[in-house]
């Protein structure tokens, strides 16, 4: 059973995550995206960036570092093998780029029944350690009934 007392809970910010070129390139390779701005500094600079940037959905790597810990909280009672992703939405202040040191802070905004399933929505703020807002990720996951 999902513990409804977790609605509205703000989890501690994740440990700082250092975004590096190698990880961005690995992620771009894994999604099959050959865009040079994700792996070639000169191409990224030609496109107006200080360093290589990350593909838009790379934000999930950082937001999951926070939301993964939150959703694994044993007090919440989520069965992760029964979880599928329902919705995802990102709002970007700027691209995530190599050299960023960021944290993810998760708020569990909603838990509701949909038929026999349960939907959980989290809102995750990705900020640099200096406090600059980079991206907001809103995720809805669905725990299917057994």
């Amino acid at each position: 059973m999902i513990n409804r007392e977790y609605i509205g809970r703000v989890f501690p910010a994740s440990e700082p995550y250092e975004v590096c070129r190698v990880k961005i390139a690995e992620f771009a390779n894994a999604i099959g995206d050959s865009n040079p701005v994700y792996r070639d500094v000169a191409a990224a600079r030609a496109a107006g960036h200080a360093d290589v940037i990350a593909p838009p959905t790379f934000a999930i790597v950082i937001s999951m570092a926070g939301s993964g810990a939150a959703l694994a909280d044993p007090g919440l009672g989520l069965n992760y093998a029964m979880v599928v992703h329902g919705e995802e939405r990102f709002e970007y202040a700027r691209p995530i780029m190599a050299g960023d040191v960021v944290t993810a802070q998760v708020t569990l905004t909603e838990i509701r029944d949909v038929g026999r399933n349960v939907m959980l929505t989290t809102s995750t703020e990705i900020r640099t350690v200096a406090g600059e807002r980079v991206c907001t990720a809103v995720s809805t996951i669905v725990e299917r009934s057994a």
Partner: protein
Amino acid sequence: MSDQITYDGVEAGAQIAAVSYPVTRLGLVKYCGASGDFNVIHWNERIARAVGLPDVIAHGMFTMAQAGRFVTDWAGPAAMVTEFGVRFSSMVVVPDDDAGASIEVSGQVEEKLDGNRVAIALTARSAGTKVLTRARAVVRLP
């Protein structure tokens, strides 16, 4: 990749030609490692079936990444994605064979917004079924 498009060069209602992206078991294993999402349903057929799924399924975020790639390839290197959202409406089932599955993404310029921004409505299908709904990206163009 396409040439750089501009805000003034884009018309509302314009169609963006469909692109088909492959998804294989190897691709999902790579995505597990790169994303850190090792949910067993994305790589272990035995457990996927035991929890009631037809087979191993792709990460929703892998599908969203293909839609993102479709947008950024269309928009060009000087564009910036400012918003991107999807609903995962159906699973992308990935069989354990050499062909795997494919995700076909197409799009349409939904509207031109202020600040040189353009909203793109996206469609993604796999095996004839819509796998994303309410899929929309906003990009700022030069």
